[in-house]
C-alpha cells in the first residue's frame, strides 16, 4: 500500500512537472489579421477588423450568431415577439459582470441600445436598428423593445458587433481599453505587438480552453507570408489569396479550410466624382473588368461571381453575375458615348488587403485595356478609413463589405459611395415595411436588380474565407457568416 502510494506520488510529481510545460505551449494562441484596427470599439467603426478582434471575445451582444449564421441566445437568455411583431421582450442573463467588475442588467442593456440608436454616438451601423422606436426597462433583467415596424431580423441584428453591450462607466475608453462581458478581458495593445487578451476569471459562461491570445496585424504580404512560413502564426482567418497558399497547403503543421464569408468584394465608385455621375462610365467600368480572370488571385478556390450587392447564400438572392460580361469593346463604346473617347485618367485607391492588392493589378490592366489610365495608390488601413471612408477622397477603391445583409447601405444618404438615389431609398422603405417574406424577397430582388442596372459599383465576387490554422487547433470557423474570430470555440488538441 505504501509502495503504491509512493508510486502515485512520484507520478503526481512527474505530472506536476510535465503539465505546466505543456500548458504554456497549448494555452496561448496567436491570431493574425490583415488590417490593424483603427481602435477597439466595434460600436464606433465599420472596420471589420475591430469586430474580428473584440466581438464575441471581449464584447457580447444580447444575441449571438453561430458559425452557421443562426441566431442563438447570448446575454439575453430568451426572447418573445408580440403577435404584431412590434414588441420584443428579452429576458437577460443574471450574474453577468463586465471585466471591470460592473454589473450587467436591464439598465445597462437599455443604455447600450439607446446609445446604438443615438445619432450623436456615431455608430456606423445605426440604421440597421432603425425599427426600434423605444427601449423600455421592464425589470432588473428584463427589457422590452418597441418597434415602429416589424423587423424579423432584429434578433439577428442584435447579434452583430455593432450592437454589443457596453457599460456607461467604461464606454468612453472602450476604443483604447475595451471592457465587455465576454470570456476574454483586454490586457493591452502595443502598436506592432498586437492586442493581448486573457481569459476572464469571472466569466459567466464556461471558461474557455485557450487562456491567452494575441491578435497581431500584418498587412504586408511578404511579412505575413514570412510569419506563416516561420510558423509564428497559429490562425490566420483568410489565407485565400496568399501567393504561398499552395506551399502552405502542403505543410504538415498547417491546415487550410475552405469557406466563404458574407463579404461582397466590390470596386466602389465615388459617385461624387465627375465621370461617375454618368451611368455609361460606370457600366463601361463593369464591362472592362474581366472578373473571371480576376479569380486567378485565388489559387485554390473559385468564389462565386456577383452582379449586385447581395450574398448568394440568401434566399432572396438574384443571380446577376452575367449582367455585365467582360467586353472591352463595349466598354470603349460606352466611354466614347460619355465623351471620354480620348480616355480617362483615374486613381484606384488600394487598401492593404491581399484581395484588393492583387485585384487592383488585374483591374488596372483591364481598365488600361479600354483606355483608362490608372494610377494605383496604395494606402494603409487607417489611411483608407480616413481618406476613403470618411473623407471620400477617391475615384475607385476595392473593398469587401463583410457585414451580412447590408444592401441598405445604398439607401443611406451619407455613405462613402456618395450614391443618392431616391428610387432606391423608396424601394428600401418598402422593403422595411414588407411583412411577408415573399413580398420582401421580391422587393429585395428588385433592389438587387436596381443596383445592377445602375451599375452603382463594380460587383466582383463573394469573398472566400479560407482560414489557415495550425494542425491541432480545433473549432476554427470554416465559413464566416459574420466577421469574428471566436476564441472561445477554439481549443488545442
Amino acid at each position, binding site marked *: 500500500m505504501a509502495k503504491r502510494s509512493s508510486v502515485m506520488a512520484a507520478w503526481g510529481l512527474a505530472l506536476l512537472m510535465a503539465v505546466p510545460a505543456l500548458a504554456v505551449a497549448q494555452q496561448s494562441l496567436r491570431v493574425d489579421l490583415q488590417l490593424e484596427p483603427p481602435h477597439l470599439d466595434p460600436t464606433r467603426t465599420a472596420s471589420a477588423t475591430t469586430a474580428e478582434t473584440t466581438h464575441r471575445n471581449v464584447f457580447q451582444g444580447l444575441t449571438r450568431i453561430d458559425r452557421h449564421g443562426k441566431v442563438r441566445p447570448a446575454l439575453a437568455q430568451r426572447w418573445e415577439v408580440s403577435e404584431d411583431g412590434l414588441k420584443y421582450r428579452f429576458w437577460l442573463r443574471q450574474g453577468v459582470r463586465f471585466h471591470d467588475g460592473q454589473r450587467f442588467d436591464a439598465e445597462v442593456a437599455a443604455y447600450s441600445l439607446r446609445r446604438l440608436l443615438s445619432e450623436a454616438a456615431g455608430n456606423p451601423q445605426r440604421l440597421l436598428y432603425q425599427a426600434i422606436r423605444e427601449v423600455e426597462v421592464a425589470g432588473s433583467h428584463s427589457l422590452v423593445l418597441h418597434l415602429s415596424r416589424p423587423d424579423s431580423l432584429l434578433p439577428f441584428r442584435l447579434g452583430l458587433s455593432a450592437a454589443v453591450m457596453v457599460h456607461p462607466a467604461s464606454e468612453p475608453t472602450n476604443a483604447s481599453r475595451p471592457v465587455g462581458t465576454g470570456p476574454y478581458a483586454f490586457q493591452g495593445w502595443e502598436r*506592432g505587438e498586437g492586442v493581448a487578451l486573457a481569459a476572464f476569471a469571472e466569466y459567466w459562461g464556461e471558461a474557455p480552453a485557450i487562456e491567452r491570445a494575441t491578435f497581431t496585424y500584418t498587412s504586408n504580404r511578404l511579412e505575413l507570408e514570412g510569419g506563416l512560413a516561420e510558423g509564428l502564426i497559429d490562425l490566420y482567418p483568410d489565407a485565400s489569396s496568399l501567393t504561398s497558399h499552395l506551399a502552405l497547403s502542403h505543410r504538415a503543421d498547417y491546415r487550410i479550410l475552405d469557406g466563404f464569408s458574407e463579404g461582397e468584394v466590390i470596386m466602389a465608385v465615388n459617385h461624387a466624382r465627375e465621370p461617375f455621375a454618368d451611368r455609361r462610365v460606370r457600366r463601361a467600368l463593369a464591362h472592362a473588368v474581366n472578373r473571371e480572370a480576376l479569380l486567378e488571385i485565388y489559387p485554390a478556390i473559385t468564389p462565386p461571381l456577383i452582379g449586385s450587392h447581395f450574398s448568394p447564400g440568401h434566399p432572396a438572392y438574384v443571380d446577376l453575375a452575367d449582367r455585365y460580361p467582360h467586353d472591352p469593346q463595349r466598354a470603349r463604346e460606352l466611354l466614347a458615348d460619355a465623351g471620354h473617347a480620348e480616355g480617362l485618367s483615374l486613381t484606384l485607391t488600394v487598401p492593404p488587403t491581399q484581395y484588393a492588392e492583387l485585384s487592383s*493589378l488585374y483591374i488596372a490592366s483591364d481598365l488600361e485595356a479600354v483606355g483608362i489610365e490608372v494610377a494605383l495608390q496604395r494606402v494603409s488601413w487607417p489611411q483608407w478609413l480616413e481618406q476613403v471612408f470618411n473623407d471620400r477622397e477617391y475615384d475607385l477603391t476595392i473593398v469587401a463589405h463583410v457585414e451580412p445583409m447590408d444592401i441598405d447601405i445604398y439607401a443611406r444618404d451619407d455613405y462613402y459611395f456618395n450614391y443618392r438615389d431616391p428610387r432606391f431609398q423608396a424601394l428600401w422603405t418598402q422593403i422595411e415595411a414588407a411583412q411577408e417574406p415573399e413580398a420582401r424577397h421580391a422587393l429585395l430582388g428588385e433592389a438587387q436588380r436596381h443596383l445592377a442596372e445602375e451599375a452603382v459599383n463594380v460587383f466582383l465576387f463573394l469573398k472566400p474565407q479560407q482560414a489557415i490554422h495550425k494542425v491541432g487547433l480545433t473549432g476554427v470557423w470554416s465559413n464566416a457568416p459574420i466577421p469574428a474570430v471566436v476564441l472561445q470555440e477554439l481549443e488545442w488538441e
Partner: protein
Amino acid sequence: MREGFGLTARLAVLTALLTLVILSTIGVALLSFGEYRQALSRLSSESTRALMTASRLKQQSESMVGSGALLLLADDHFSRRQAMFEIGDREAWIRELVVELEASPATQGTFGELDETLEQLVDNLRALDTLVQQRIDTQAQRVSRGLHDADGILRLHHLEERIAEQVRINRTLSMELGVAVGFHVNHIRSQLDTSVERLNEEIRRRERVLAAFAGVAMLVLLVTVLYVNRSVVRRVLQLHRAISRQRPAPEELDVSGRDEIARMARSMQRYMHDISDNERRILAMNRELDFLASHDALTHLYNRHHFERALDARQAELQENLYSVVMVDIDHFKRINDTHGHAAGDQVICRVAELLDEGLPEAALLARYGGEEFVALVPGYSAAALEPLLEATRRRLARSAIVVDGVSLRVTASFGVAQKIPAAAFSLCLKAADEALYEAKRRGRNRVVVRPLRQSDSEGGGDG
C-alpha cells in the same frame, strides 16, 4: 536555574548557524536561478529576437535585388506593377524591421546610413519603374506604328542604356544595403556572444560562491560535530568510565562548568561520595564485628573461639617447632565475685589479663579461656624457659593490690605449664597444662606448676 541551559543554548546557536549557512546557500542558488532565468529570457526576447529581425532584414535587403530583376523583366504594366507592389511591400517591411531593430536594446549605433541607402535604393527602383514604364509604352507604340519606327528604336535604345545604368546603380546600392545590414547583424551576433560569455562567467562565479557556501556549511557542521563530541560525548563517556570502575572515584569526575552535563556530573559526584561514605561506615562496622567475634569483650584478649581457630591454622607450625602452653586460673574468684560484686570481678579479670599480656613474651597467643581462666600458647619457649617469666608475673599479681570502689583487693592466680610433647597433638599438651594447673591448685594455689617431661612423651601419645 538559568545557568543550566548553556549546552542547549550553544547547540541551538550552532544548529542555527548551520541552518543559516544552508539557507543562505539555497538562497544564493535560488537567486542565481532567478538571475539566469532573467538573463536567458533577456537573451531570448531581446538578442535572439533582434538577431531574427536582423536576419529577416538581411534576407529582405538581399531579396530587393530579385524584386528589381522582376521589375527589369516586366514587359507589361501588370508585371511592372506587381514588381513595384513587391518592392513596396519589401520596402515597408524593411522599414518596419529597421524600426524594430532601432528600438531593440540589443542594438546600438545609428541606422541612418541604412535608411539612407534604402531610400536611395527605392528611389532608384522608382526611377527604374518609370523607365520600364516608358519602355513598355514605347514598345506598344512601336508595335502599333509598325516595325520601321526609327525614332521609336532610338528612344528604346536610349531607354535601355539608362535602364542598364540604373541597374548598375541598383546593384551597388543593394550591396551597400547588404553591408549596412550585415554590420548590424554582426554587432548583434557579437553582442549575443558577449552576453553568453558574460552569463557563463556569471554562472562560474556563482558556482564558486555556492561551493564556498557549501564549504562553510561543511565547516560549521564539522565544528558542530567536534563541539558535540568534545562537550557532550566525551564528557558523557568520561562519566560512564568514572562510574563503571570497580571502585568509583568521585574525585576523578570533571565537575567544572555550568552546563547540564556539569550539573549531572556534580550530582553523580555527590551520589558517589555518599556511596563511599556509606561503604566506609560499613567497613568499620565489619571490623568491629570481626574484633568482637575473635576477642573477649571485657579484657580485649582473644576469646576461646579465636584461640582454637588460630591453633587450627598453626597446626603445621606447631608440629615442627617447640612451644609451651600455659593455663592460668584466678584463685578464689567466686569469692571475689560474691563479696565485691560482678563489677569488681570484672576489674580483677581485666587486671589479671593486663598483667598476663605484659608478662608473657611478645609472640605468645593469649586468650581468655573461660570465666576466670586464661590460656596462652608460647611458641619457641620450653617450659623451663617460660617458668621464670610466669613466676615473675605471679609475684607481680600477688604483690599488687587491685583497688575496686576504694577497696584494695589481693588477688592471686595459679599457673599450669606444659611443654610440647613430641609427636603428640596439641590437645594433649593443653590437657597436660590443665593437669599442671590442677596440680597447682591442689598444692595450695598461687604457684606455677610445670608438668615434668616423661619417658613416654618422646614415644608419642600419652597416658593422660
